[in-house]
């Protein structure tokens, strides 16, 4: 009972002292403007991770990043939507069109639904495709036509589907309407033109949104105004149609555009943030803790223990880091966690030498001698008296090790050896490098992931360098 009480008070004072130390450290840290910028940036990154469900346009982006069906309604290689602000010609953005004015008629064994899907088209560059989507159950036929601003009604397609369970139904106008649209064009174009520009070379979207006049095939002039898709569904027997809509895959898309696999890059970047933080912080935390403990133990015991430990350290330290990690990843095909372990296996060496030399100094302090005289155990001296002295240094080197870990993960991902179940910034860049994004100048695919990586590296560098400057007063003035 008595010992418990004593222990409690002693931790109490320790806690208070630690708190006081932290406050004074924080007060000093606040004087470094760039350190504060780092802290603010870090909080912003954390905020992005916390608010991920709110700012993610595609909720399943993280888990279905490599599932092409999840992204099929998007345009491919589309620039960010805000690029329209800087160009004279407005490109059609991505849009989901919902039906209005549903009229239902029921006859024995049959039910008809008439609906209209309005589309206010005010752009210069037509979409890449429009897809009709619905969840369909039962035996259903769809008849779809388009009423254009000039009053012409153009039949688009009629199609039939049957399914006993609710299933995804999708019709791409680009492929389903070729014949009808070509018929329509033939009413305006000269036969000599339609002979050269045949069905296969015709761009359906260009024609659908062009003024009906000669030249609409090879030099379409966009017709702005109110378009209406008229949809009639005929259900035989029992059936249900839900979530009917038109997905306009524009030429520009969302905040960061899309890649060649139609994926929303913004979603990928947001999902990648948490992995970057996780990989960076876990790796640096584990490896610095191992390294600092290793250095202290080595310096504390000295003699043969020190010699052996430093030899082991030297061997690991002398291995070229990136090549060995690449080869190990290529051979063992790591997932996220094994990759973190892999990096920790080599990253811990970074802090050992400095810590050891600091430990050698601390070891000679009189309070260590006093602790020894009081018959304190070795582990007590190491963990109670020596390690706490090194905590500030450890935090600084932890912060400075984070960017390295992120960099290594992205480099391994660039080689295509990353964990395929998650999406990281490095993997987005790998896809960009494979998808010849550089060659095609798809900057929205190449630039943002690197900027984010640099920004995160900068965040931790700001924090780490500020701590470093506080800890090494020599660096401040001459």
């Amino acid at each position, binding site marked *: 009972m008595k010992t418990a009480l004593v222990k409690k008070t002693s931790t109490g004072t320790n806690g208070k002292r630690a708190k006081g130390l932290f406050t004074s450290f924080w007060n000093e840290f606040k004087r470094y403007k760039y350190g504060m910028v780092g802290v603010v940036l870090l909080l912003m990154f954390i905020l992005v991770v916390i608010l991920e469900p709110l700012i993610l346009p595609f909720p399943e982006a993280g888990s279905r990043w490599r599932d092409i069906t999840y992204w099929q309604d998007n345009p491919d290689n589309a620039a960010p939507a805000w690029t329209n602000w800087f160009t004279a010609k407005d490109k059609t953005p991505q849009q989901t069109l919902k039906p209005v004015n549903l009229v239902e008629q029921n006859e024995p064994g049959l039910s008809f639904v008439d609906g209209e899907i309005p589309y206010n088209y005010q752009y210069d560059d037509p979409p890449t495709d429009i897809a009709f989507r619905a969840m369909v159950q039962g035996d259903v036929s769809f008849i779809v036509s388009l009423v254009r601003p000039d009053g012409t009604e153009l039949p688009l397609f009629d199609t039939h589907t049957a399914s006993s369970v609710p299933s995804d139904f999708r019709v791409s106008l680009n492929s389903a309407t070729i014949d009808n649209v070509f018929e329509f064009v033939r009413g305006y174009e000269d036969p000599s033109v339609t002979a050269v520009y045949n069905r296969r070379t015709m761009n359906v979207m260009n024609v659908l949104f062009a003024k009906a006049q000669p030249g609409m095939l090879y030099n379409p002039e966009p017709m702005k105004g109110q378009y209406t898709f008229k949809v009639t569904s005929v259900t035989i027997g029992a059936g249900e149609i839900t979530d009917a809509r038109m997905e306009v895959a524009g030429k520009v898309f969302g905040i960061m555009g899309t890649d060649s696999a139609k994926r929303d890059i913004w979603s990928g970047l947001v999902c990648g943030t948490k992995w970057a933080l996780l990989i960076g912080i876990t790796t640096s935390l584990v490896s610095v803790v191992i390294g600092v403990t290793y250095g202290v133990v080595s310096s504390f015991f000295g003699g043969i223990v020190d010699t052996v430990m430093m030899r082991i350290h030297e*061997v690991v330290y002398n291995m070229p880091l990136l090549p060995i990690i690449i080869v190990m990843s290529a051979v063992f095909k790591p997932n996220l966690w094994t990759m973190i372990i892999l990096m920790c296996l080599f990253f811990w060496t970074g802090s050992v030498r400095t810590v050891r030399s600091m430990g050698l100094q601390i070891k000679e302090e009189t309070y260590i001698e006093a602790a020894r005289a009081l018959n304190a155990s070795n582990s007590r001296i190491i963990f109670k008296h020596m390690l706490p002295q090194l905590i500030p240094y450890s935090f600084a080197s932890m912060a400075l090790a984070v960017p390295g870990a992120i960099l290594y993960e992205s480099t391994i991902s660039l080689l295509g050896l990353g964990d395929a179940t998650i999406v990281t910034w490095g993997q987005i860049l790998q896809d960009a490098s494979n998808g010849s994004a550089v060659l095609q100048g798809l900057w929205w695919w190449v630039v943002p992931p690197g900027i984010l990586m640099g920004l995160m590296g900068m965040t931790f560098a700001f924090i780490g360098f500020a701590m470093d400057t506080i800890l090494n007063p020599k660096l401040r003035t001459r």
Partner: protein
Amino acid sequence: MYWKYVLRRLLQSVLTFVVIIFIYSALFNTVMETTLRSQINEQIQGEMMQFATSGLTAEELKQHFENRKERLYEQYHLNDSLPSRIFWRAIDTLTLNFGKASTIKSSSGSSDVMEIITEKIPNTLLLFLTASVIDVIIGIALGLKKAQKPNGRMDRWTSIITMIVYGLPTWWLGMVFIMFFSYVIPIFPSGGIHSIPPPEGGLAYFLDTLYHLALPVLVLVIVGFWGRAYLIRNIVLGTLQEDFIMSARARGLSERRVLFGHTLRTAAPPIVTMALTSMLLSISGGLIYEGIFSWPGMGNLYWIAVQQNDIPVLMGNLALTTALYLMGLVILDLIYGFLDPRIKVGGKA
């Protein structure tokens, strides 16, 4: 005394290399042997094809090749116990006997791993040494400038830039630069070490290589020198706190004399070490960077070997990279020992 130091350092590093190779051998034993076995099987398959018309019965043929396979396994110690197999794989590597590549070929068409790798080494050295030299020169100049007025406006701004580029992937900047300077504004080639076909004549060839070298070196330097300048500033500032600097100032020497005469001489060994270490680290860390520029060096070879899953090339490349890396560390220590008089006379640094 210096020679004793040199000898000791060399021995030590050879020993380290041997230990590291044994570690590699233990780590990658399974995959190395799988490759070796499949290569032996392939070889025997090939021989079988030739023997098919020799008039021997199928049974005799089978027996003959079973024996031959056994002999080859025996020759490569594949039937031994695990420690012995690890030992022999390590010996193979240490004697630079890397075997045959699975798919990759050298420019002369040989699939000897040693030849494939050695023809890449000069290219890697050319790229990274050029970049490092420029980098270190700018770094030292800027670092001294920063140390002259610590916390001055210039010092602060350049330090901020150091931190901004701290976590920037060099290969990413390479991608961005290629995009803008090879495709948007086509003033630089997008990759490779020279045009295809390479121009005739010594001077034209040299200029062509230089032209291809420009963009990758530019990117490496842009990212690199800030960090070096920052470290040099810190080393110089550390030296400026020493007592002999105070006494030099007390004697009324000019700040220039103090900085270039006294400080720089003392700070030279750590500066040289730092410059060379960061150079070594940048080579080891920047290897992948070559892939972005299709620069035919060792880093690009890693990239290709990973993509084609060519294990022998990967292993050989790793062993040679390690050897080069260790060699670099030795050279570094030798220069340090040469610059630091305490080591020359056998004292402790």
